[in-house]
């Protein structure tokens, strides 16, 4: 894909039958959205599955993308929904594992130090948030979206989103308090 090609131009090419042009959209948004999927689902394998699923669904429904210039935002909405579905499907199965893993890591590494350990603690705390709170926190603080934008994306009211973000922050502070103290 030419560096200057807008999303609308690439979408138009794909809609005219140029399947390979879709690779340009994959390359443009793959890494940008991998971060959200990874933090939402907690591991690389599930994140890649969600990304693949989102891109394939986007391709299949491309003619329904009402504003091709904002293909990225449309794709992100699909990805957020795929992460919800994948997260819910695997949540119950993984919950026991996550708790056990956290207990195991906590026992082996009671006083983590250094940047890597700090980052691991954050990842671990993030995965202990409720799915809806994790989603709201990531959209607000990591993707740096405004509440109105988040509301449009998720279909959840602004007041409910603010509550989720607040609860997520409280829980993160609680979970990471020992690390802060250390």
């Amino acid at each position: 894909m030419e560096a200057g090609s807008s999303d609308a131009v690439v979408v138009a090419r794909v809609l005219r039958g140029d399947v390979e042009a879709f690779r340009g959209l994959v390359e443009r948004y793959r890494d940008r959205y991998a971060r959200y999927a990874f933090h939402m689902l907690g591991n690389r394998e599930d994140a890649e599955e969600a990304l693949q699923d989102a891109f394939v669904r986007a391709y299949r429904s491309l003619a329904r993308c009402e504003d091709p210039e904002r293909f990225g935002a449309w794709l992100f909405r699909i990805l957020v929904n795929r992460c919800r579905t994948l997260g819910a499907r695997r949540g119950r199965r993984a919950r026991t594992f996550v708790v056990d893993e956290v207990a195991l890591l906590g026992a082996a590494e009671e006083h983590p130090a250094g940047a890597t350990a700090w980052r691991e603690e954050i990842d671990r705390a993030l995965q202990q948030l409720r799915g809806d709170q994790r989603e709201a926190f990531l959209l607000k603080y990591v993707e740096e979206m405004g509440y109105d934008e988040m509301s449009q994306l998720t279909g959840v009211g602004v007041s409910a989103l603010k509550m989720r973000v607040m609860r997520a922050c409280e829980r993160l502070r609680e979970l990471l308090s020992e690390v802060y103290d250390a």
Partner: protein
Amino acid sequence: MRDETEEDIEQIARELRVPVAVGRSLDARIMNAVRNLPRHTGFGLWSRLITPRTVTVTPLVWGIMAAAVAAFAVLGAMHAGQDLHRAAKPIASALFPAPKAADRSQRVQFVLVAPDAKKVAVVGDFNGWDASHVGYQAQHRGGGVWSVTAPVPLGHHRYSFVVDDSVWVADPTAPRVTDYDYGMPNSAIVVQEQK
């Protein structure tokens, strides 16, 4: 105090904003999957016009459309004589083909008893799970009973009530769906054509 607590969250967010790289093989997997799908063949505006989309059409609207078709046929006959009159039927049927199941809908009444609620909306796969969708806002009918009658396309659907923009409540009168989003309770509905 506030600045300090904001700063700790910002510190966490900075760590999480670091890009996450995925395997390069992902591109190939996506492109392989895409190549196995039907190739798009549309052209600009025309592709938009012929793209299938969900359109809710009530029986009343179909009646109006049928009347329009009939008027079109009659006017055609008046202006162009018997030959065109004979041609009007296929033209009309091409313009307004029989609706597919996904394009047809039935009006469904949703009822929830929620005495303490200030607002109740219906969300489902038929309205994009959008709690602010105008057509799916329930009205308080008195005694804590909230209801709304809204169009739902024929077929199987999942839905839920959203109370006060925050609490998801499954329909106590409908079967639950086991595949939750976020553990939020969903209900199942099958909408069939009324005979």
